């Protein structure tokens, strides 16, 4: 039996949320409802350009969604995708339990074959 990609760790999602500045940005967006690169940069010790780059990473991971607002984009957290990231995190331990049970089954089957 194999594990599908959906059950396993989504690399893009992990690295997107793995950065402290991006987590702080998600936090601000959750508190304030929405924000732009400019509004977020006013709350963070990084430049607007850096914030825009981080928003791009979060956007590609599906964690935020942007809608045009004048010269900028206004971003909101995608609740479903954030919930999915959290669910993946909590499933890591359970996933290893399942893998180890499969390892046990395979190794014991080989052992029995060799004894026969």
């Amino acid at each position, binding site marked *: 039996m*194999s*594990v*599908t*990609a959906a059950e*396993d*760790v*989504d*690399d893009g999602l*992990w*690295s997107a*949320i*793995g*950065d*402290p500045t991006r*987590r702080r940005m998600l*936090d601000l967006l*959750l*508190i304030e409802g929405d924000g732009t690169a400019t509004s977020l940069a006013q709350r963070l010790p990084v430049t607007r350009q850096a914030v825009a780059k981080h928003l791009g990473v979060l956007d590609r991971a599906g964690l935020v969604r942007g809608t045009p607002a004048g010269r900028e984009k206004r971003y909101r*957290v995608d*609740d479903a995708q*954030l*919930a999915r990231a*959290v*669910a993946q*995190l*909590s499933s*890591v*331990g359970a996933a*290893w*339990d399942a*893998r*180890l*049970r*499969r*390892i*046990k089954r*395979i*190794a*014991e089957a*080989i*052992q029995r074959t*060799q004894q026969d």
Partner: protein
Amino acid sequence: MEFGTIEREIYIEASPEIVFEVVSSPGHLKEWWPDDARYEPAPGAAGDIVFGDPDAGGAVVSFTVVDVRPPRTFSFRWTHPAGEVAAEGNSLLVTFDLTPSGAGTLLKMTESGFREMGWEAAVLEQQYREHATGWDFYLPRLAPYVATLRVRP
């Protein structure tokens, strides 16, 4: 340095030699984990593991062998960005330690690197935040996972 680690142990009624083969060879790996595994089981060898069909939304994940000492230890790093050298901070480290026990083998698995990758820090940090935020909605779901993490001095 602190880091979060997942630890699991399982007793297997098979010799350490057999268990080592099952946890380390690409052919066996894909029987218990990915759909495909492409690497040489040699220290430092870089490859990847594949989930699903890469041409249809599947995932190709970097996989680098760290240590190969049959029949006692096999370790690898995974999830580092493609093209990057696997190292602390950009990947998760999985170590299998095998100990003979009776007629079988005690297999211990540890997976570490969560703190370096920011995940556990994120969880701990958010738990202690005083103000109510959207995280409160998600945190209860994290508790079962946090309980499996051991923080070491």
